[in-house]
């Protein structure tokens, strides 16, 4: 019986992989469902096991199945790993994703699984923390805080109970690495959490997964059940979110696990000192924890040898939006934004010029192609008024209206604000209103026109220039006055849109964009 591999990843399924897998089974093939390799242009991808190794075909439709099985289908890709998109990657964290049956413990062990946990458990906790420190690993979830330092704080804290919490509430548009890893290689995350538990002396862990990722929830729950004996005495549990973006903020996430509204907590105390249920808690992103098995198995030096400046190791970059080769691309830090968008991403899918890319999700800055020389590096992006965040890159072509995108950022903040602090809760609503007035060409038509005492008040904004001054003030207040990144970072997309694309706000040069951009 011919053995074939078909992705069961949510993105592949959304493109029709289930129907292809069913057709293959009807044709008599033995179908193994894997995660996705991560190049969605070739999904649904079918890989056929042959004497020469796996031969890929993609994209494939159900009616193509006979031609795939006899090897005659024109969408023959050969060895998928040899395609330029894959051959140029450095896959430390995603080495198994797309290759293995995600829930097969045999597959996991056969592909190097558990080597990191075994190595860790042969060491005293302090030495495990030292290895993580030496690797240079920084939080892959956004701010880039050194993971080893966080673990050290929890290890050093005296408590009767400690927790490991995985923040799998990756809600940033343009990011999907967490989802792909949990669906395609769940044991990697479980192993990373078990290593963390040994390192700090934790007995219980939670994976908090957003409800928008139903496939990931199912796979993780089953994987935890199957791996329970392997990670004991450490015990793990999945917690399902309930559609609140702010729960990606670590302290809001902790409140949510505790069964409360997901509102942010003021820091200090840090969660490492007083976190879940008031106990010392390691809270890391999926990609941070999933990087740990490699580090323990292969050594801190091998990980730290890759990277750029103080950004060590690899980053699973996600190419999203209007991009030809959309997908997951894991590479050492230091690759430039332009290389990622144009060389690897292949430019826009629409074939029109790239106008803007947003890096780091809805709270990340928009960059024009003139800034494509920026190296992918935490410090370089911060210096350019942006952030790497989850390393999602969303590409827009020249039909984008950047004032609309700035308005959307404010609107998103208003919808998702937890309401605890005023700059975020009120500021975002006022921000939408202010951008509306800018887009309308100033205060004309606004209801305040009917209130002469306000219109004529000293300092009342009237022109577009005045409104933009108001918007900048508002962003300043949100940036420095908000309790967490939701209100604090929303100014990044808003101000970067304003600074790099002023013509869309009715300022400076008139854009040469085509008429449909006004749509």
């Amino acid at each position: 019986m011919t053995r074939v591999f078909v992705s069961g990843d949510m993105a592949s399924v959304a493109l029709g992989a289930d129907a292809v897998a069913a057709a293959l089974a009807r044709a008599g093939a033995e179908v193994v469902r894997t995660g996705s390799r991560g190049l969605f242009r070739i999904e649904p991808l079918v890989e056929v096991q042959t004497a020469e190794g796996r031969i890929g075909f993609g994209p494939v439709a159900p009616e193509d199945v006979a031609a795939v099985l006899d090897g005659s289908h024109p969408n023959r890709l050969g060895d998928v790993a040899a395609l330029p998109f894959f051959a140029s990657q450095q896959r430390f964290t995603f080495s198994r994703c797309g290759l293995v049956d995600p829930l097969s413990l045999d597959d996991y062990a056969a592909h190097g699984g558990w080597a990191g946990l075994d190595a860790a458990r042969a060491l005293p906790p302090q030495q495990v923390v030292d290895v993580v420190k030496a690797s240079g690993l920084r939080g892959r979830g956004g701010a880039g805080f050194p993971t080893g330092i966080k673990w050290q704080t929890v290890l050093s804290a005296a408590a009767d109970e400690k927790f490991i919490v995985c923040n799998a509430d990756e809600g940033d548009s343009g990011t999907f690495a967490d989802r792909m890893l949990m669906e395609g290689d769940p044991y990697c995350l479980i192993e990373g959490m078990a290593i963390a538990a040994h390192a700090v002396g934790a007995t219980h862990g939670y994976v908090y997964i957003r409800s928008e990722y139903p496939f990931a929830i199912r796979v993780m729950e089953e994987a935890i059940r199957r791996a329970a004996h392997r990670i004991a005495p450490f015990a793990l549990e999945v917690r399902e979110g309930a559609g609140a973006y702010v729960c990606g903020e670590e302290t809001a996430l902790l409140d949510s696990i505790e069964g409360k509204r997901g509102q942010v907590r003021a820091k200090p105390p840090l969660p490492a000192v007083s976190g879940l249920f008031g106990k010392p808690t390691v809270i890391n992103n999926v990609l941070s924890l999933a990087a740990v098995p490699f580090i323990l198995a292969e050594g801190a030096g091998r990980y730290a040898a890759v990277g750029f400046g103080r950004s060590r190791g690899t980053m699973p970059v996600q190419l999203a939006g209007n991009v030809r080769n959309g997908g997951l691309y894991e590479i050492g830090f230091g690759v430039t934004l332009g290389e990622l968008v144009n060389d690897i991403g292949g430019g826009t899918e629409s074939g029109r010029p790239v106008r803007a890319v947003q890096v780091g999700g809805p709270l990340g800055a928009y960059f024009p192609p003139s800034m494509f020389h920026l190296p992918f590096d935490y410090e370089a992006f911060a210096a350019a008024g942006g952030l790497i965040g989850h390393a999602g890159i969303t590409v827009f072509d020249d039909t984008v209206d950047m004032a609309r995108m700035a308005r959307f950022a404010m609107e998103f903040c208003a919808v998702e604000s937890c309401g605890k602090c005023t700059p975020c809760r009120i500021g975002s609503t006022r921000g939408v209103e202010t951008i509306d007035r800018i887009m309308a060409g100033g205060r004309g038509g606004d209801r305040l026109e009917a209130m002469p005492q306000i219109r004529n008040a000293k300092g009342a904004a009237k022109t577009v220039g005045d409104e933009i001054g108001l918007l900048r003030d508002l962003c300043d207040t949100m940036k420095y006055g908000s309790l967490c990144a939701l209100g604090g970072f929303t100014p990044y997309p808003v101000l970067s849109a304003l600074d790099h694309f002023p013509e869309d706000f009715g300022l400076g040069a008139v854009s040469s964009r085509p008429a449909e951009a006004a749509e």
Partner: protein
Amino acid sequence: MIGQEPIGEVVTRQAARLDGRRGALLPLLHAIQREIGHVPDEAVPHVASALNLSRAEVHGVVSFYHDFRRRPAGAHVVKLCRAEACQARGGAAIERAAAHRLGVAMGATRADGQVTLEAIYCLGLCATGPNALVDGRPVSRIDVDGVERIAAEVGA
């Protein structure tokens, strides 16, 4: 009362299943919503009593999270992504087309109860948008034909 079983008994049964889990409120609300489709206001005092919380705390949580419904949804639920990556791929036009074709505004349930149309912020399918979840099934690269297929599927 929802269906045959009084809501209090549904809550008690689901709470018993979660016995021993700390911070059990969200799992309990999810379980109730999975079983009866929404979290009715009548459930709140029962949940409060089962978990030793105040009614205000339970109400605060139910109303805070976007996922929990206080009223039943339509027979079919279409969730359309309106986050940036889908917008970059023409999502706004598909949003308008879907609202028009399904005959219901974003965030509303059609008068005949057939379809609920909701916004969702990111399914993690950001390279193949515009995306939707149709009764829990993910659909990518939605174009005008895709909107027609979704409409046919939900009987609109």
